[in-house]
């Protein structure tokens, strides 16, 4: 084969690869692109079947976004999500950090089994638990309260984050703690003063991850909360903005886009660590 042919073949492979990627990107991102297109379009423009939907036939408008922020409970829902998210992150960190460390270092062979056991509870889905939990929540007098979500969400964030943190702690060399203990720290002291500062990135990953899980949760939110002012964003938008036969597509798409994209960007910054922790937990 001549040099030119090699080159042509390399270019061909590159082009094929590019084509595959382009197709996947179109599939993955199109709904979000479509939300963005729709949120600035006049309703009369959207609802005219003769208009090419890929183009703007009238001037872009901010009206849908204004309606969303000032005439609906959207801001309240965003705030509710942030409130629940903050408290769930707090509870998750307080329980999962010590548990993760304990599994990584202190409990040995039993711990390994226990770790897998804890991880497996993540596989017990809300679908089995939401019915009994709805009764538990109502007997605690928490129905329609955001605290019902604060109480229940850690039941799925703790198992997952414990597993992730165990992975992160396992990668830290044991020598470092041993050196600290020779220097007179207790085991607990070595953990708090030496291991924790080294694990900031892992903890940040867990925070982001917990927050996305809270934002995505739907079934418990739908089950425990009926007052529209106490919805989280993932429940409020589909149940309250879609009522009856009238769909305010512009505002609806704006609501979806604004809530989805920032969290995705944040998540993307941490996804490598997330995968690393996940697989170390599974393999080591």
């Amino acid at each position, binding site marked *: 084969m001549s040099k030119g042919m090699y080159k042509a073949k390399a270019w061909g492979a590159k082009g094929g690869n590019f084509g595959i990627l382009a197709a996947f990107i179109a599939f993955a991102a199109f709904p979000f692109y479509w939300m963005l297109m729709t949120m600035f379009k006049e309703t009369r423009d959207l609802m005219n079947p003769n208009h090419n939907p890929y183009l703007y036939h009238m001037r872009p408008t901010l009206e849908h976004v204004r309606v969303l922020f000032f005439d609906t409970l959207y801001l309240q829902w965003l705030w509710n999500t942030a409130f629940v998210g903050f408290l769930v992150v707090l509870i998750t960190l307080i*329980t999962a950090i010590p548990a993760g460390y304990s599994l990584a270092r*202190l409990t040995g062979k039993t711990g390994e089994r226990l770790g897998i056991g804890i991880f497996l509870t993540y596989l017990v889905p809300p679908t089995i638990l939401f019915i009994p939990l709805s009764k538990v929540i109502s007997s605690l007098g928490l129905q329609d309260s955001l605290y019902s979500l604060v109480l229940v969400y850690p039941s799925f964030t703790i198992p997952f984050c414990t597993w992730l943190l165990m992975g992160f702690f396992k990668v830290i060399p044991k020598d470092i703690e041993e050196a600290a203990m020779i220097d007179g720290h207790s085991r607990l002291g070595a953990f708090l003063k030496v291991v924790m500062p080294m694990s900031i990135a892992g903890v940040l990953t867990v925070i982001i991850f917990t927050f996305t899980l809270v934002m995505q949760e739907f079934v418990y939110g739908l089950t425990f909360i009926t007052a529209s002012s106490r919805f989280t964003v993932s429940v409020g938008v589909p149940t309250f903005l879609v009522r009856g036969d009238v769909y305010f597509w512009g505002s609806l798409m704006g609501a979806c886009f604004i809530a*989805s994209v920032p969290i995705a960007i944040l998540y993307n910054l941490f*996804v490598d660590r997330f995968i690393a922790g*996940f697989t170390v937990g599974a393999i080591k």
Partner: protein
Amino acid sequence: MTKHTQSLADNERWLGRVMIAPAIVYIVALVGFPFFLALFYSVSNITVGSTETSFIGLENFRHLLHNRTFLRALRNTFVFAFVSQALVLVLAKTLALSLLKDFRGKWVVRLLILLPWVAPISLGSIGWLWILDSVYSVINWTGRALGIFGPATWPIWLGQPTLAMASIITVHVWRLLPLATVILLGGLTSIPQDIHDAAAVDGAGFWRHNFQITIPLVLPIMLVAMLFGVVFAFTDMIVIYVLTRGGPYDTTQVLASLAFFTGIDGGDLAAGAAIALFLFPVLAVSAILMLRLARRTEVT
């Protein structure tokens, strides 16, 4: 510090137990306890308003097995989970392979591909609700503009049984593909380059390379991705709740959505719990597979 706390801080066995206790208590209280409650509900006649509940044995299950909607949902759940998982695996493998090489702007590509997974699925599904709208569907508009759809063709994506199922499966694949891809990518990058080089030197072609080297090496991690996917697909009700509510005529109803509509909207907690428990065998099998997998990787 007193002598007692001093010793606790150093006693590894006790420290280990104390540190893990809060997590275990939380999980037992909010996963274990409700799970047993679900078992109990399924053999009782409890409703949302009931104050007295009595044991009625397997009555709920017997009723379910004669209920056509339930049987339909059971079948749909399997179709939905297996078709979407098969598609996800094939697509994720393809996508992961083409993301393996480094190129400029890779992080943007990855961000775009991860979007469906990170964005709350209830919101993503609403995006699809608009794309699949019966009157303003952009797919139909494009199809007609390109001449793919004739003048008489105007699919109602969410209103015709087969199309509705296909739409739900598509949205589910859309949502689960990023996770499977990212997990597989992790597996692929951990294969040392030497192995690929050696295979190339020995003259292994594309298929042979794939089936004899790459796939066996990423198999454990591929199984992890698959188990997750199966569990998600089996237990998810969000896509269906937003897009079709199980319609038209229960043709897209699955166990999870039926459990919700029966137990919460309908107030029949006992029947809802019984429906949800039919998911349990699948989960148990997944859990056992996961444990086996964990043990196997432990050995190597």
